């Protein structure tokens, strides 16, 4: 599969596949309460032809505006628990530096394996809870 090239010349100039991946990630993010990365990473790897590492980095960047929009929507609905979010975020910010640092060092195949095991665990967890 040919990798999708991104033209930086226009603000929203993206290959149609990347547009589709963004939209799919956004809808499922808001609907299922996940960051959208679980949807976008496999699509970026298997549909857009990115490397596993680049797909994870692209996904993290895409999550920023997507979660902004979802936070505003939920904020208007008044369902956010701000103190719980603050405590989680304090830890999560420290963890994110560690995790992203590890992403820059890990090689492609173990990364694929770890992400595959993570998806399998998520899948089983979702089915058990249903």
């Amino acid at each position: 599969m040919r990798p999708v090239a991104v033209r930086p010349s226009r603000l929203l100039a993206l290959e149609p596949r990347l547009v589709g991946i963004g939209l799919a990630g956004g809808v499922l993010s808001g609907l299922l309460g996940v960051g959208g990365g679980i949807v976008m990473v496999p699509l970026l790897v298997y549909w857009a032809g990115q490397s596993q590492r680049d797909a994870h980095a692209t996904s993290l960047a895409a999550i920023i505006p997507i979660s902004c929009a979802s936070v505003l929507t939920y904020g208007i609905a008044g369902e956010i628990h701000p103190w719980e979010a603050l405590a989680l975020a304090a830890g999560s910010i420290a963890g994110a530096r560690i995790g992203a640092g590890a992403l820059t060092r890990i090689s492609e195949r173990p990364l694929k394996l770890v992400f595959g095991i993570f998806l399998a665990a998520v899948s089983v967890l979702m089915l058990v809870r249903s």
Partner: protein
Amino acid sequence: MTGVVLYVVLAAFGVVTGGAAGLLGVGGGTLMVPFLTLAVGLTQHEAEATSLLVVLPTAIVASVVLRRRGVGDLGAGLRIGLLGAAGGVLGALLALALPGEVLRIVFACFLGLVAVRLIRDSLLAR
């Protein structure tokens, strides 16, 4: 759990979810939502809303680290996300209106298939 203990446990759990998020390229909502419903006692919608507020700084910090190390294309990712934000609003409104059970089962099965393919691709030498 109440009071200080709750917030210490939440921060510790945040380190784990943030680390997983940075490595796996996800926000961490998948780990936080079950924790917030089962261990903290929030409703599904409250947990989803709260986790999304944590996902935002997590993704920003991870993206800054990756940008500094020259991994990935931050600009392309942000543009994908801007388009995705429109979908995010739609999805969040749908989540407030729909009982998500059937959707979650379908989604879980899809994830299982993707997981099998990823693990197979990782283990088979090219």
